[in-house]
């Protein structure tokens, strides 16, 4: 017994010794590898603790989980399920912060797809702000990728109309290697909006010199001619106005005297034009037209004759009826002749590019002013639109940018 336990313990000692040696070498190698992983940026170090837990939970399946959610995110987008889209976007970004598409597509969903159709102005602003913050976060994780800087610049330029804050992002994108040529174009555009015309001109000149854009492109020559577009352009103001209208239309008060005053001032827009209802017989020659007139004089029925003789395929089955139409809808010769007729009267021969017509006027409805009752909603809409346009302009002039006021408070310049 004594010798057996001795041999066993000897073997055990050997095993233990081998284990300790191998283990120490493994630990050393591991330390070396961990240094490498930090150096090659393979460790998700700048994740928040909650993201670390999330990543730890899915372990080796982090990327596939992110991809699975990315696919579902696409279906939420297509079904317009915003309530589920928003958390999914953030989750994918947290699982795989180096997935550039998620940051840019996500920000685009926030800034445009969700915020544009939103009718609650608070939601709208919050989504725009979220798009801005989301991209900034993406840049934190991927500082060396031009895409996200450019996206953020574009978001501020186009969506927030904040050229001041767009410029540094475009410049940051430009400073990163492998940026596409349009990054510099955007810098030039932004400088122009900011009124820094000389700098913008200089940039366009550089672009042309380096073959980045054709001289015929026109941006440079436009600036040379002094045709600047500084500040927010008119069409943008209009777009913004229309967007706000959807949020504010029900909330803007419009009084009864305002409505009647607007109606009285814009009566010409609420006129119903003069309309006539007529029939015609179209034939291919003057002789045929003369024959038609003869038969009409003999008392033959216009409707029956149109059915028999008219070569106008569209109307000969309905007895030549053209229905009701206002001035300007028919060719001028026809218009003139038809509107000159009295009710029940038949015209002479009228020549147009289609052939020879004989026209009979059935009924005339004279021009009239639509009553206020009929056009009340139209008048109200026009009033609201005008008020919103004025509102947009004054707010923009006062430095208001979409979703930005809160962010401005955070920034200390």
């Amino acid at each position: 017994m004594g010798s057996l336990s001795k041999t066993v313990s000897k073997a055990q000692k050997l095993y233990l010794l081998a284990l300790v040696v191998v283990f120490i070498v493994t630990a050393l190698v591991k330390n070396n590898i961990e240094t490498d992983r930090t150096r090659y940026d393979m460790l998700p170090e700048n994740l928040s603790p909650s993201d670390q837990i999330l990543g730890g939970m899915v372990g080796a399946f982090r990327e596939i989980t992110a991809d699975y959610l990315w696919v579902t995110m696409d279906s939420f987008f297509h079904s317009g399920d915003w309530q589920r889209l928003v958390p999914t976007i953030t989750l994918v970004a947290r699982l795989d912060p180096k997935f550039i598409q998620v940051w840019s597509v996500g920000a685009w969903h926030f800034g445009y797809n969700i915020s544009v159709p939103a009718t609650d102005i608070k939601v709208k602003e919050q989504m725009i702000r979220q798009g801005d913050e989301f991209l900034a976060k993406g840049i934190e994780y991927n500082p060396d990728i031009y895409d996200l800087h450019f996206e953020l610049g574009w978001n501020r330029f186009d969506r927030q109309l904040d050229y001041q804050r767009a410029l540094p992002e475009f410049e940051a994108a430009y400073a990163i290697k492998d940026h596409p040529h349009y990054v510099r174009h955007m810098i030039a555009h932004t400088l122009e909006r900011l009124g820094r015309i000389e700098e913008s001109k200089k940039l366009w000149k550089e672009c042309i010199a380096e073959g980045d854009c054709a001289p015929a492109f026109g941006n440079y020559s436009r600036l040379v001619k002094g045709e600047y577009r500084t500040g927010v352009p008119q069409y943008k103001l209009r777009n913004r106005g229309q967007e706000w209208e959807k949020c504010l239309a029900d909330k803007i008060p419009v009084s009864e005297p305002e409505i009647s005053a607007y109606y009285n001032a814009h009566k010409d827009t609420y006129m119903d034009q003069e309309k006539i209802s007529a029939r015609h017989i179209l034939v291919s020659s003057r002789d045929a037209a003369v024959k038609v007139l003869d038969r009409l004089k003999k008392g033959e029925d216009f409707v029956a004759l149109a059915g028999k003789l008219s070569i106008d395929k569209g109307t000969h089955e309905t007895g030549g009826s053209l229905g009701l139409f206002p001035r300007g809808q028919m060719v001028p010769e026809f218009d003139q002749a038809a509107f000159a007729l009295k009710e029940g009267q038949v015209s002479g021969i009228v020549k147009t590019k289609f052939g020879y017509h004989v026209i009979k006027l059935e009924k005339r409805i004279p021009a009239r002013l639509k009553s206020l009752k009929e056009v009340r909603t139209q008048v109200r809409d026009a009033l609201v639109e005008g008020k919103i346009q004025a509102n947009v302009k004054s707010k923009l002039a006062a430095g208001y940018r979409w979703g930005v006021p809160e962010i401005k408070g955070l920034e200390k310049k």
Partner: protein
Amino acid sequence: MKAAALAMTTFKEAIRKKVLLVLLVFAFIFIGSSLLFTYFSGGEEIRMVKDVGLTGLLIFGLLISTFLGMSLIPAEIEKRIIYTILSKPVRRLEVVVGKYLGAALAVLVMVLLMGLVFMGLIFFKEHTLSPVAMLAIILTFFELLVVLAMAVTFSTFASSTLSVVLTIFFYIMGSSSDSLQYLGGRSDSPLLKVAVKGFGYLIPNFEIFNIRSQVLHGDAVPGLYVLKAIIYGLLFSAALLIVAGMFFHEKEV
């Protein structure tokens, strides 16, 4: 030499197992299904193919290694073949190593087959072979070697079911190692810090073998890093096998 002979028999037996064939077929279907995924992927087709393919290779590799590893030694004992082996002058450690190597060879064949299908898909989609993806497959193989060694080790002292559960548990722990280290490092308690640090050495960090993120984002992976990771995998497997040898040595058969 004796270990080599044992390895060859083990390998031949392993690749004849029906469950392996079934797993392989499922793996092919899974990897191939990445092509269907691309339909929904919103312009990220190749990412999907690579991600689904590499993850499929890992999942099925894990299943194959776990089931192979857990049954290596218990099956021998059950079938009483072990007596004929042990009656010969073969050391018990040699038995463990021989059987392990045989199973490792079987895993290699499986990984190669799945890898071929995967690389074929990438070539079909991209018309180039992605070298980083190839490195990812190689590292997955060495990751599986560690998993295999874990399963073998557990099977020397635990039942089959418990071995599978333990292997899966430690795999999950090992692939969350990074997060655990990070969170441990933020702890205020020095004791917890040391404990977590030590834990990091005791449990294999499977994230070292995970370069799927680099494959997906087109980042380069230095060759030296891959080499170091391979050495780490081999060393950890060796350490596990020594533990397995130790337990097996003590085992009454």
